[in-house]
């Protein structure tokens, strides 16, 4: 069985690296620094999990989420929205757009790790 692929969408490089090393397990990683890049990678890489920042140049992370949920072939893709906008309405907006889970910044690296593991396990 191939290793699950994680797509990290985050414009801040230090946070992309933080997410990568938080996950530790032998996942395959792809990284995008803006929304357009993320959409392109979603289509080509077909990731199992997308870690999605909301505030990115060139478009909101939620537009990436809409793209994923709008494509039936990507229906199994798990999306975790990780946002610095942590108000209830931001949480709700992510949920309404079809996010599987929501983490607010700053996030606990171990919480991220266990969340991704749980999501993958529940899907299988």
């Amino acid at each position, binding site marked *: 069985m191939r290793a699950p692929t994680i797509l990290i969408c985050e*414009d*801040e490089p*230090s*946070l992309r*690296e*933080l997410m990568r*090393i*938080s996950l530790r397990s032998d996942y395959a990683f792809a990284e995008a620094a*803006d*929304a*357009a890049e993320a959409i392109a990678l979603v289509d080509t890489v077909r990731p199992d999990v997308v870690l999605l920042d*909301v*505030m*990115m*140049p*060139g*478009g*909101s*992370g939620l537009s990436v989420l809409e793209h994923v949920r709008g494509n039936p072939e990507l229906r199994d893709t798990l999306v975790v929205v990780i946002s*610095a*906008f*942590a*108000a209830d309405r931001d949480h709700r907006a992510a949920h309404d757009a079809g996010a599987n889970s929501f983490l*607010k*910044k*700053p*996030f*606990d*690296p*171990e919480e991220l790790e266990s969340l991704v593991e749980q999501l993958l396990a529940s899907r299988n």
Partner: protein
Amino acid sequence: MPLLRRVVVGSAALAVIVAGTFGVLLVAMSDLRSSTNAQARSKDVSTATLNVERVVNELDVSLRGFVISGSPRFLASWQQARTELPSAAAQLERLVAPQPEEKRKAIDLATMTRDYIQDYGAPLIAIYRLRPEAARSPVATREGLFRIDAIRKQLANLLAGENDLATAREASAKHEATRAVGIGVAELVVTAALLVLFGLFLAHGVVRPVRTVAAGASRVAAGDLSTRLPEQGAPELQELTEAFNSMAQSLEHGQRELEAQNEQLRQSERMKSELVSIVSHELRTPLASILGYSSLLLKRSFGKEDTRRYIETIHTQGGRLVSLVEEFLDVERVEAGRIELKEEPIDLRPLLEEEAQLISAEAPRHQVEVGVEPVSLIVLGDADRLAQVYANLLANAVKYSPDGGLIEVSGTIEGDVARVQVRDEGVGIAAEHQPRIFTKFFRGEAREGGFAGTGLGLAVSREIIEAHGGRIGFRSTPGTGSAFWFELPLLPNDKAPKPAPARVA
């Protein structure tokens, strides 16, 4: 005409008309009375005539009695009647004096009776005393009868004339009475009609406009402050409606002001919540790095090189937090006017190039071109602060052209000012957001577009440029890009022989 004058004039006119008609009525009544008086006088004339006739009869009877009998009783009677005659004749003459015809008849009558006494009665008595037979002769008797007959005819004539007059006067009195009643009725009708007209005028001129104003006041009371009344009619009513309209207008104005203030309050509420959201976001991103890396470093072990890199990241992000705090403090300082500017000659040329090089290194997808006039652009000011403004414009140009592209910087001399412009090929600014672009914390659709930031850069930049006596502005087309510029007064050459080198942050 003023309403007051109209009412006064209307009342006065009504009074004059009523008085006039009653005057006519009085004249008619006085005519009636004089007719009645004339009728009464006719009776007096008849009485006086009959009185004269009685005296004449007395004269005739007593004269004939004396001539036949010679009795002194008849002579006394004759003498008595003779003394009564002048006053009776005079009374008749007086009564008929106004009627020339009757007067003439009365004078004739008086002459005839006087002649009867003097030319016939008195001589006959004298003859009787001498020769009684002669006095009783048929000739003398016939003469007396003839004269008395003439006098009686004259009396009858007078009475008949007076009767005709009395009949005519009675007819005239009847006519006058009918006329007076007619005039009285007509006056009643006219007066009643005038009163009704005056009432209608009052209703039309006063009551109706007052009702209109009352209805307007009710509408205003019910909340319709746009109510206005037509300013027309008498001056007093115009004054009233004008006062009403200006009252409604000031009420409406007050309400609008309140609404505007309310809107401002709501806007500042929105801005506050926007600010909380922005601060939260801007602080959370570096904090996520700091807390995330430090937590991993505490719980896991990494290679020496990785460990060092992570600590460097924590350090860098800590620095970012400090600059954010500084940026917020900057706004406070600038707003409170506590910004301290150095005043030294600066050449903008090297500053423009150095700052552009720095941004080029951080924006690999952008091509930064700097075109500056080959002469010094020397202005008086604070090099650090001007570099901050320029760096902010460059950073915005990079941030808002996420697909890369050309960023064109120009430094030119225009008259007595130095003009610096930074043009990008980015997303541009929607027309509806352009007026508020320099308002602090205003970010238009930047957040929705995924552009991080505090909404403070341009607000602070404007404060700095204006504190230097310059101007800042932009033009932008959505989808094509923006060009931000600022202008600063050039320092005259004789005052700046040797510019200090610009410092770059």
